[in-house]
């Protein structure tokens, strides 16, 4: 059966190739210099909202100029349903040559050996400047299957006018100062029943990760390609306790059984009764969509650490770039990656407000206080366990979310909540 399929696809491929040649034969005819690059197409799939159009336009122009006869077929994909689409596309006969993968999805693809091993090319691809968390996401079993692209991490977005009125002179730089700021804000604005010093829904597990990292813990321990959950550690418990302390101190009325997307926290922040929220820089734009005058009053600071003067480590979300193993243009694709990860285009990414994956130059981000706060914290970025099973966890049943809700609503005590989530996470890791 397999041989049959191969034979048929082979025939189809040959037929297509000849058809392609015949179509262009008229002009290409003689022996010009295009050589093997003649009429090759490099298919690039990037995600909606990742690289800005100015960057891709410039990059594709440069790439086509330096690679005679090559056309870049650029397709912007939607995040929604991308896993299924990638699965189908990679299983098809004509896969894209460059794909962008969410960093938490990357291990699922790497472990199945459907991506080209790039271990030997790291040096060529600006490897010494790679962002540590995204590099880790792209690794599987000691090999590098995808490269960093860009990242982002959460920070505390706050209302400068409210801080001023409450007599807070500088953004908090420790947990204690953070809690003090909440007290001051409540003293000043607390008479308004709709006021929230900090909007923090019960299932913002990215923020919980920050607190656990800050305590010196993690959610899992790595041993080769195996992961073991470590939510019952004292550090993880301390992180969870601080989350609860923060929820209680802030008097947030955000739902304890939902995350920051339902309802969208930026929309609530934009109503003007919230002094702080923990979010991504571009949530400022969402928040101020209907209240443009608010924009000038919003700034950001890194999530404070329990150690005064430090910033808490943060979960880094972002994207990796990879070449499908059955790409027919792997050589061109590597050239493309090289260009994309060069400092020129990485700087353009930073200018667009993202933490570049292959450049340690963060100066473009420092022009704006909100992106500067992200850049400051990004030095201490971490990734979720680089295991293929994480994709399943994120697809729906995230034990960390269940743990947060159970603990915050009092349905389970600290030991019970962490033990249950630990078992659920281990079960998920075993796939």
């Amino acid at each position, binding site marked *: *059966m*397999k041989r049959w*399929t*191969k034979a048929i696809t082979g025939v189809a491929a040959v037929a297509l190739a000849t058809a392609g040649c015949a179509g262009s034969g008229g002009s290409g005819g003689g022996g010009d210099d295009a050589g093997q690059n003649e009429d090759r197409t490099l298919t690039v799939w990037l995600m909606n909202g990742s690289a800005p159009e100015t960057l891709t336009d410039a990059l594709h122009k440069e790439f086509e100029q330096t690679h005679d006869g090559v056309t870049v077929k650029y397709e912007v994909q939607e995040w929604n349903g991308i*896993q*299924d689409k990638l*699965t189908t596309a*990679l*299983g098809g006969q004509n*896969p894209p040559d460059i794909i962008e993968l969410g960093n938490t999805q990357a291990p*699922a*693809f790497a472990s*199945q*050996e*459907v991506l080209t091993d790039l271990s030997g090319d790291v040096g060529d691809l600006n490897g010494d400047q790679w962002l540590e968390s995204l590099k880790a996401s792209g690794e599987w079993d000691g090999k590098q299957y995808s490269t960093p692209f860009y990242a982002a991490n959460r920070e505390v977005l706050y209302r400068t006018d409210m801080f001023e009125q409450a007599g807070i002179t500088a953004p908090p730089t420790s947990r204690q100062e953070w809690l003090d700021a909440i007290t001051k804000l409540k003293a000043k604005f607390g008479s308004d029943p709709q006021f929230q010093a900090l909007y923090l829904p019960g299932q913002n597990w990215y923020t919980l990760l920050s607190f656990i990292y800050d305590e010196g813990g993690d959610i899992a321990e790595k041993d080769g390609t195996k992961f073991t959950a470590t939510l019952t550690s004292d550090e993880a418990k301390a992180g969870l306790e601080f989350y609860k302390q923060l929820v209680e101190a802030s008097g947030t*009325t*955000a*739902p*304890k*059984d*939902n995350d920051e997307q*339902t*309802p969208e926290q930026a929309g609530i922040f934009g109503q003007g009764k919230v002094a702080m929220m923990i979010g991504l820089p571009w949530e400022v734009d969402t928040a101020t969509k209907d209240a443009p005058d608010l924009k000038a009053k919003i700034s950001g600071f890194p999530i404070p650490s329990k150690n005064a003067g430090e910033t808490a480590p943060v979960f880094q979300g972002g994207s990796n770039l990879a070449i*499908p*193993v*059955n790409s027919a243009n792997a050589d061109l694709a590597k050239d493309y990656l090289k260009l994309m990860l060069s400092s020129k285009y990485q700087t353009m990414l930073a200018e667009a407000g993202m933490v570049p994956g292959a450049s340690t130059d963060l100066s473009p981000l420092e022009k704006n206080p909100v992106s500067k706060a992200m850049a400051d914290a990004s030095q201490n970025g971490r990734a979720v366990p680089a295991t293929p*099973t994480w*994709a*399943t966890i994120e*697809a*729906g*049943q995230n*034990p960390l*979310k*269940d743990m947060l*809700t*159970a603990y915050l*609503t009092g*349905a389970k005590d600290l030991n019970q909540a962490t033990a*249950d989530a630990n078992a*659920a996470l281990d079960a998920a890791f075993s*796939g």
Partner: protein
Amino acid sequence: MTATAQIVVPAGSPPPAPPRAGRPRRAGLGERTIPYLLLAPAVVTMLVLLGWPMVQVIGISFRRLDLGELVRGEVVWIGLENYREVLADPEVWTVVARTVLFTAAVVAATVLAGLLLAVLMRHLSGGVRVALQVTLVLAWATPILATTTVFQWIFDQQYGILNKTLVKLGFDSFAGYSWFSSGTSTLTVIGMLIIWQAVPFVCFTIYAGLLGTPQELYEAASMDGASPWQAFANVSWPSIRPLVTLATFLSVIWDFKVFAQVWAIRQGGPDGGSTTLPLLLYLKGVAGRHFGVASAIAVLMILVLLVLTARYLQLLLRSREADLS
């Protein structure tokens, strides 16, 4: 429908066949093949669109098919390994039991509510009945996910109208009450959502049966001094029974494999407490990319459905035979 027809046309000897002139002639080849030719497009379409995928699913359930095998085009036969893995997982049995119970509860409530509404509709006067019918059609016509979103907001912990109303009515303990904190509570909300969307169809189907019941039968029953309950049991029920069976059967199939609403509400949470078989299939198969295991679960689902609907299938087959004889 057959039962309705039997009531409309009093039972008796069938009308005599039109007299046929001459000797019975043999049908030509063309005449004999035409029915099959006419059936062919439908049969072929069904085989291609339903039969082939079904064969594929059964085939895949005996293979190891993860992303890697899919991309490399490998065919790895592993016999019953997928079934062994699925059946050895205690969670799967919990999910099967939960799905069966959930389906039974939702179907029972749907059919009962549909039946009551249909009877009510028959007794309502013009304007009110039209209002009720329009309401039902609207509930039915609203896209599934739109209704789901509305329900999510109704039951929202902080902003939900239900909690706010309950607090206004004096039940202060519902301030900030989380309806999605346990699997049972979450499934109850999902069940209500599905019932809400399913009742209109069942109601209209049964109502159609009631309309087909001749008014004279009710008059006769009332003349004989039948109570409303007796009228229902002896006049309405016989004529709508096949339709109720049909609605129940269809509801079992629909509710057993419902995915969108269950997934949208809480993705099967909390702690996997509202995970039903279709969700398990999605989590293992699509999210976890173990297509072989997912196919085994799919085959398992078909088997459970067959068991659940065996009685109806039996009735269906028997009535066919009766029609034929």
